[in-house]
């Protein structure tokens, strides 16, 4: 029996690998492209650190969102929860408590909103889109209220190395917050693909009534996916606070759409039943690379690849001499999302 068993393991791994292939290839193309058009600035250790620190928030959000989406739901409140959690964290620090306490409070706030979402969607059976649209507004409003509509700055002697681009022990290479994110990613990837809970989430997203009839505790499992998503948004909020050194109630506005885009680019089905943490992370890094790289583009450096000076100047006159402007970035992200959706459609036909 050992041969077919190992074959099945291979088949499972193989199919996951195939699904990750598209997003990964797209990420490679983006990195290769920016390595060519911004060689001095994009392809450096320093930028790798910046990029990883920039990706952290979307990556964490995308991990949580993967669980919700695979379970057949959606969570629009992520961006607001990030802001609320960072404001809460900042307030606790300002009140004189330790950074650890502040971080725990920030995470707890996220978890709390997640539980409310879980209650509304799983227990009260509201449509996820509407319920989380509501909590999105509530969380954002509460954040602004708590912060009195302005950024909460911690005391001047407060410093944090959690998101420092050049970490304190140099051998860390990346900011501690990035390592935290990596550990979370590995843990949650394992949970989704290898555990009973992960299988239950998938079964609910794939066929809810089948799951219920087979004795899967549908309400509890769905509830947990929203709670997890809220918790990870809380963690993201804490890291955002440390990165900006301030609790900004308007931060991460619209982040939920970026997160959903990352999950879709990563190959998850918005109708539920399929998605991988790895894919979503690749999607998140792809989006972060796009905006990071666009800011670093230097058309004049194209000369070394044999592009004529006139051509470089034309490009500069179209897009500005340094960096690709925001609107082009937005168009690019939109195009990537549409391509991802088209690829998904083709795969399922």
């Amino acid at each position, binding site marked *: *029996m050992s041969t*077919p*068993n190992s*074959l*099945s*393991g291979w*088949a*499972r791994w193989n199919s996951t690998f195939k699904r990750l292939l598209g997003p990964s290839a797209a990420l490679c193309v983006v990195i290769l492209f920016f390595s060519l058009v911004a060689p001095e600035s994009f392809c450096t250790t320093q930028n790798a650190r910046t990029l990883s620190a920039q990706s952290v928030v979307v990556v964490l959000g995308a991990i949580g969102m993967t669980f919700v989406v695979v379970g057949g739901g959606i969570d629009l409140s992520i961006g607001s929860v990030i802001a609320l959690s960072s404001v809460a964290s900042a307030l606790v620090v300002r009140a004189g408590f330790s950074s650890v306490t502040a971080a725990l409070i920030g995470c707890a706030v996220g978890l709390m909103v997640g539980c409310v979402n879980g209650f509304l969607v799983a227990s009260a059976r509201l449509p996820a889109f509407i319920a989380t649209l509501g909590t999105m507004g509530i969380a954002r409003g509460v954040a602004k209220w708590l912060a009195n509509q302005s950024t909460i700055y911690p005391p001047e002697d407060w410093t944090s190395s959690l998101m420092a681009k050049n970490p304190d022990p140099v051998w860390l290479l990346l900011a501690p917050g990035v390592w935290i994110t990596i550990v979370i990613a590995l843990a949650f990837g394992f949970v989704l693909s*290898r*555990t*009973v*809970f*992960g*299988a239950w989430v*998938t*079964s609910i*997203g*794939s*066929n809810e*009534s*089948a*799951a*219920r*009839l*087979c*004795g*899967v*505790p549908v309400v509890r499992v769905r509830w947990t996916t929203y709670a997890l998503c809220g918790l990870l948004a809380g963690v993201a909020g804490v890291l955002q606070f440390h990165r900006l050194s301030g609790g900004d109630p308007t931060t991460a506005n619209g982040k939920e759409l970026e997160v959903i885009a990352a999950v879709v680019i990563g190959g998850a*089905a918005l109708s539920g*039943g*399929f998605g991988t943490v790895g894919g979503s992370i690749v999607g998140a890094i792809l989006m972060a690379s796009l905006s990071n790289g666009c800011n670093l583009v230097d058309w004049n450096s194209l000369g070394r690849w044999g592009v004529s000076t006139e051509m470089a100047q034309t490009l500069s006159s179209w897009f500005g001499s340094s960096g690709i402007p925001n609107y082009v970035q937005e168009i690019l992200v939109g195009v990537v999302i549409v391509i991802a959706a088209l690829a998904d459609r083709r795969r399922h036909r």
Partner: protein
Amino acid sequence: MKSPIFRLTGISKTFSGVHALRKVDLDLAAGEIHAILGENGAGKSTLLRIMAGAEILDAGSMQLSGKNYFPRSPRAARTAGVCVVHQEPAIAEHQTVADNINLGCEISSFGIIDRAGQLRKAREALKSIGAEAIVDPTALASSLTPGTRQLVEIARAFVTQPSVLLLDEPTSSLGRVEADQLWDAVRTMAKSGVAIALVSHRLDEVRRVANRATILRDGAVVESGELSTLDDDALVRAMSGSVVKELQARSTRTHEKICFQAGSFEIRRGEIIGIGGLVGSGRSRWLRELGLKSGAARVSEDRRGEGFAQSLSIAENLTLPFLDRMGRWGIVRSSEQARVANKWRETLSIKCTGPWQRIGDLSGGNQQKIAIARVLEQGTALILVDEPTRGIDVSAKAAIHEILRHAADDGHSVVVVSSDTRELLALCDRIAVMWRGSLGVSKATNEWTEHSIVDTALRGAGVESAA
């Protein structure tokens, strides 16, 4: 009779004032196969759902192996040893067959799934129901045909080693071969001491596999006993409360004008052609393609998925394909929709509260009548019907046959795909059998017997490629 391991006493259930069940008593003994019979709406499904924990009883009590049994959820029922195989297979399409078989009772340590163990268990379960050669446990469930989905559901019941197994129309989407495999598996299970309750509309099938029968009418038990003491007439009489006309063979008439021709397949005006064959032999696909080629209206075998918008009303569903006829300048007149719905409600005696009732609330038989009304109203000369009476009770079946005969008498040409051999023989003028994707030559019904249809479906004897 052995002492019952599962005993129901005085079960009652009311839905918004309507009695679905009244004081139902039922005993299941270990190792017996007990058929629960009744027309649609007689309360069979409700009874099954109560036993399975999907519905909570209003009054009465249940005892399982001498202990009180009061499941509040399917999970509780499953834990207590009561398992269900559903009519519509409950399959999570994105997961593998092995995952589906173990769904809800995963093999794990510390919450981590033991995939190899799950696969082994799935293989064992498939083997014990004789389906190991048909279903690959590593395949994605979305690749399964309706027939094999049912086998997965039964394998799923197997892994929990239940003491009671409830089967709800398990063979309604299966062909003859798969059905036989299923019954072999069920008999094996009964021999090992499992008590089995079976809801089915196929009397011949019930007779073949069941020992005892309980018949429900309007939510109450009207008859119960050994099947050997009850003849078919008595069963039908008990179910319907009246004598139902035997399925009548259609008179052989000659039909002149050819209505449609594609390759060697041709159908004449006023003719009913039946297509037999196994599930998965390509009948439904062939019918779909015929529909595209000829522009004929088709009644799908999948009422839920392909047929109706379940949340819309009878009138809206009925007029959906020709809404442009329901008014002028793109404005739909609801009075016109209601008129059309009422017309068919009367002609086909559809039981409903009115044209604006949600179609999802109707019984399968009435839904099927509306599906047929829709293609008749469309007015195409050729009508294609896939499994017209699957999962429909005896009297509704007779009514639907009557409707199709009338349609043919009115000059329509009808193609019927059916797994029910008797239905083909009773309803059609000519019959052709599909075997592995190719359609055999059609012959007049009186040249076929039940045996020769099944034989051709199984072995393709004399099948020559058509088109």
